[in-house]
């Protein structure tokens, strides 16, 4: 057991911080976020060059062959900087599906920076939670196989992250009562992307209408459900990592402000009502960070030794991380706004940018009570509270 980061992991974090500080200073971020389609396209080739896009891609496909833990480091740092690029959509949502489906060419294209992608799972009338992506009610879109590993798909999807910034969508659909996954080019005929006005401008959502859109069939039936399970485990872990990055960033901002801002002749951070509240945020950040580490290690371990079963430990770890980190990030932002006082509620203050991302992360899998329900299922089923 050694939970200190390796030299490699430390170097990865340092490099990420350096790049993001140089490319995404606060002023640039806020300027981009206030543009109608405020993405940062210039950074994508650089991310590919640095290997961010292929961290979890096997070396033979042009990736680094590293673990989920390394990805959590990058996502944590990119969320701390609110990088307005489809990194989460590509690496956390689409890539695990492509990898699980053994779609080697698109996987290699992702690693090389030639393919940005997202996942379209939510049905406008269904359960939008990522965990429910393989449930029948999330799959109103219907696919029709056209042979040669191709299919056409029709239907409506919504709340698709970064759909207007990617090259392709992994669409969750249904054929003959079974879930299917298709890779559909965003500019294919029959694909209409309609951006939604949402609060988090750094990660826009869109509605997608599909009318006989042609795509590559990635997986069907049990294989599709398994691929979505893999997406769920990785995406929730990475979302929790983003949540940690956000919470840490706003905690840093709040501590700095509490040290400077003076009222009644003293810095407000010297008042215990302020200091203790920030101490509680610190505790929550560290506890969340621990669960992200646990989830990443457990998901990797479960994937590496399949013979040991489906990995109940990984299930529990992922559900725990999601149950804690996302609400903790929302609460950290709310506390940071409170500590900043009136200025914290203005558009000029950058705090709302992280707050909105935190709210978006919390919405990814529905209320935290859902993750806790999963934890309760696991704990009450095996009669014990902890790992094997």
């Amino acid at each position: 057991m050694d939970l200190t980061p390796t030299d490699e992991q430390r170097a990865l974090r340092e490099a990420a911080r350096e790049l993001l500080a140089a490319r995404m200073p606060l002023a640039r971020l806020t300027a981009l976020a206030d543009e109608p389609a405020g993405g940062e396209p210039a950074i994508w080739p650089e991310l590919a060059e640095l290997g961010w896009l292929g961290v979890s891609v096997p070396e033979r496909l042009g990736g680094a062959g590293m673990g989920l833990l390394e990805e959590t480091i990058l996502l944590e740092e990119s969320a701390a900087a609110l990088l307005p690029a489809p990194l989460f959509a590509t690496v956390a949502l689409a890539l695990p599906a492509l990898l699980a489906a053994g779609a080697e060419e698109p996987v290699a294209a992702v690693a090389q920076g030639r393919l940005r992608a997202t996942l379209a799972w939510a049905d406008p009338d269904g359960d939008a939670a990522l965990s429910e992506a393989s449930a029948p009610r999330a799959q109103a879109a219907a696919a029709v196989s056209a042979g040669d590993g191709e299919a056409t798909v029709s239907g409506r999807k919504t709340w698709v992250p970064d759909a207007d910034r990617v090259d392709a969508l992994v669409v969750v659909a249904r054929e003959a009562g079974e879930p299917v996954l298709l890779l559909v080019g965003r500019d294919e005929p029959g694909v209409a992307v309609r951006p939604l006005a949402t609060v988090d401008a750094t990660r826009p959502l869109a509605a997608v209408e599909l009318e006989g859109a042609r795509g590559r069939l990635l997986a069907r039936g049990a294989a599709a459900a398994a691929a979505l399970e893999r997406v769920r485990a990785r995406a929730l872990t990475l979302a929790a990592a983003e949540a940690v990055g956000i919470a840490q960033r706003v905690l840093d901002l709040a501590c700095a402000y509490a040290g400077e801002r003076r009222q009644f002749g003293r810095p407000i951070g010297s008042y215990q009502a302020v200091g203790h509240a920030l101490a509680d945020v610190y505790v929550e950040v560290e506890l969340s960070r621990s669960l992200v580490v646990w989830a990443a290690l457990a998901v990797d371990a479960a994937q590496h030794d399949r013979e040991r079963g489906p990995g109940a430990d990984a299930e529990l770890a992922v559900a725990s991380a999601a149950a804690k980190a996302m609400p903790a990030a929302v609460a950290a932002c709310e506390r940071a706004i409170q500590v900043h006082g009136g200025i914290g509620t203005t558009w000029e203050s950058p705090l709302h940018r992280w707050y909105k991302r935190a709210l978006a992360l919390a919405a990814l899998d529905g209320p935290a009570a859902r993750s806790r329900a999963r934890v309760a299922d696991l704990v009450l089923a095996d009669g014990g509270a902890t790992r094997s």
Partner: protein
Amino acid sequence: MELRDDPEEARYRAELRAWLDANARHAPRLDGEPDARQLDAWRAWSRRLHDAGYAGITWPREHGGQGRSAACQAIWLEESARAGVPDHLGIIGVGMAGPTIGAWGSERQKRRFLPPLLRCEEIWCQGFSEPDSGSDLASVRTRAVLDGDAWVVDGQKVWSSYAHVADWCVLLVRTDRDAPKHAGLSYLLLDMRAEGVTVQPLRQLTGEAEFIEIFLDGVRIPRESMLGRPGEGWAVAMTTLSHERGTHGVGLAAQLDAELRAAVALLGRRDAHGRRPADDPLVRDALAELTVELHALRITNLRALSALRRDGAPGPEATIAKLRWSELNQRLAALVGDALGPAALERGADAVDGGRWSFARLRSRGNTIEAGTSEILRTIVAERVLGLPSSR
């Protein structure tokens, strides 16, 4: 980062599990304050631990310890909690007084005190807090005045666990009333059988007397029975208290894990009508939340332990261990109590789970006070970890 045991840790854990399987039947069953018979059994158990190499696991070999890593200590804490066996009776000695003597004591003091401490032939207690010196420990007023070859000590200490059975006490006293608060303190080793020492149980709201008051009336302590020099008492005391952290949190989380398992078993048990408390969605949600919190704490402690092993000092995460454990322990006791209804009021052997939950509900109130109040711990986090301006 790696959560799984390395080969050496795995071997250690396997050996320990086998040993516990074979020996757990000798462990005393402790529910509440042990009586004389249980104390004898606990002493015998502690000697058994020592003989098997499970006393002083991280102590250096030259002090009679095993010279093993903090990870092995963590494995012991996890596995012993899982097996439901108590730790060494000399917990204050092995965990706090002993390492302080190891760090500050003369060769003669180490030879004199450490071996019998590990063998549980001598039990130690801690005389730090006083009625007027709780969180503000450096304000202690118990006085020691040099008179020839001895320090003459007058004062009162409180909250001293095991003082009624202890042979020795690490004592924080004021030797210089004119020096600044922290600089006037010294650290003495008190023979509990010395003339002028009286102990009196302090009955708590649980009805039990786990803590003891120590009255010191003209007690003569030999001049050489000091750790460090006169005036260095605060630094020595900090060594003692730093050993309350470190691996301590791993043990607390392991105990909470055992408590939570017991709670899940109890609340998941069906009654004659097939109902179980855990079917209540609020109980279910609360159990899940506590599970999440427990694992978060468990991994955080292991992160702190890893940092301790790498850097030689516990990282900032270490401050979280006790702060969160104490609150979780209270929440768990409250959850079980609320879910049980009037049955949670019963105490004694015939009560649910032998009365463990009614006791836990009451006893856990002290958790957020003893060994650093939650308020003090939050202030430590705010000022030393977050770097906020001092509140004083």
